């Protein structure tokens, strides 16, 4: 027996190999990654909970500082992108190239729309004086908060600003990464017709990530904007 064969034999486990979770590696890897993402967002939400409920004063009332109609539209956009993503997956699972291109393209458009609306929201908020550090001195919001300190959570404006921009900012970063990934796949794989009925792992894996981002937004929208 050669030295390499002896070494390989020594490395083999003393029990028969077993089947894994019956999932292809890319999908398994994405699920493990999403598990780590759950912990990441849990840390953010946990920090938010302790900062909000341990704060020395009440938070601003929902809708007083943040633009709820715009964000509700954005939530709708993300839900639409999630359904178009799963329709793209269903299309290619049936071997339908045409509808894969349409649904996948719509998903990218809705995702890019979400990022654009969020950028508009941030610009609008900053313009009115809502910053990560609180309400800017002399701004419209600072004046409103001075007149109604409880309604606008004047005492905890800094905590409100920092948690709001951190949580929605990290989520927006995830959406941006998703849009870039999907755009790359669209140009290199979807448009050239490289996905088939039997090989469409990329669509499923990027779809899992996209639905997860949608799921996180569903939670964030409730706890940041509505509560």
């Amino acid at each position, binding site marked *: 027996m050669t030295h390499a064969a002896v070494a390989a034999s020594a490395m083999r486990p003393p029990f028969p190999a077993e089947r894994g*979770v*019956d*999932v*292809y590696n890319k*999908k*398994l890897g994405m*699920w*493990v990654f*999403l*598990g*780590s993402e*759950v*912990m990441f967002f*849990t*840390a953010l*939400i*946990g*920090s938010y*909970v*302790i900062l909000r*409920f*341990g704060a020395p004063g009440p938070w601003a009332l*929902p*809708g007083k500082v943040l633009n*709820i109609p715009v964000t*509700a539209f954005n*939530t*709708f956009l993300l*839900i*639409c992108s*999630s*359904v178009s*993503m*799963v*329709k793209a997956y*269903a299309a290619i*699972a049936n071997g339908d190239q045409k509808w894969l291109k349409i649904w996948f393209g719509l998903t990218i458009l809705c995702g890019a729309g979400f990022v654009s609306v969020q950028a508009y929201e941030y610009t609008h908020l900053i313009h009115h004086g809502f910053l990560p550090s609180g309400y800017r001195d002399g701004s419209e919001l600072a004046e409103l908060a001075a007149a109604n300190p409880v309604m606008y959570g004047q005492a905890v404006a800094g905590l409100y600003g920092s948690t709001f921009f951190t949580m929605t900012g990290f989520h927006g970063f995830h959406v941006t990464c998703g849009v870039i990934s999907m755009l790359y796949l669209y140009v290199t794989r979807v448009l050239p017709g490289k996905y088939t009925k*039997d*090989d*469409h*792992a990329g669509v*499923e894996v990027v*779809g*899992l990530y996209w*639905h*997860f981002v*949608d*799921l996180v937004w*569903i*939670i964030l*929208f*409730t*706890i940041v904007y*509505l*509560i």
Partner: protein
Amino acid sequence: MDTAQPHKHPNYLLIWLYLFLLTVAELGLAFELPISRNMKLILLLFLAVWKALLVALFFMHLKFERWNLRILAIVPLPLAAILILAVITEHIW
């Protein structure tokens, strides 16, 4: 490539409609319904979890996956709950 158990694709547009209606219900609950703040909090969280479950079960296909993959998705949740509860104790005590 599909490793989920063989299944007919659910009616995704119906799930989309549920999600839309639940979002409208959340907005109505948050701004229109005259109920106590604590009750509002509980109901809003319930609706958010309901929507998240719809996405996970039908869009991420967890409803149709094998149990060993479902467990992989479920395992972080108790850890997340422990983390949140541990953090809340900081406020209580």
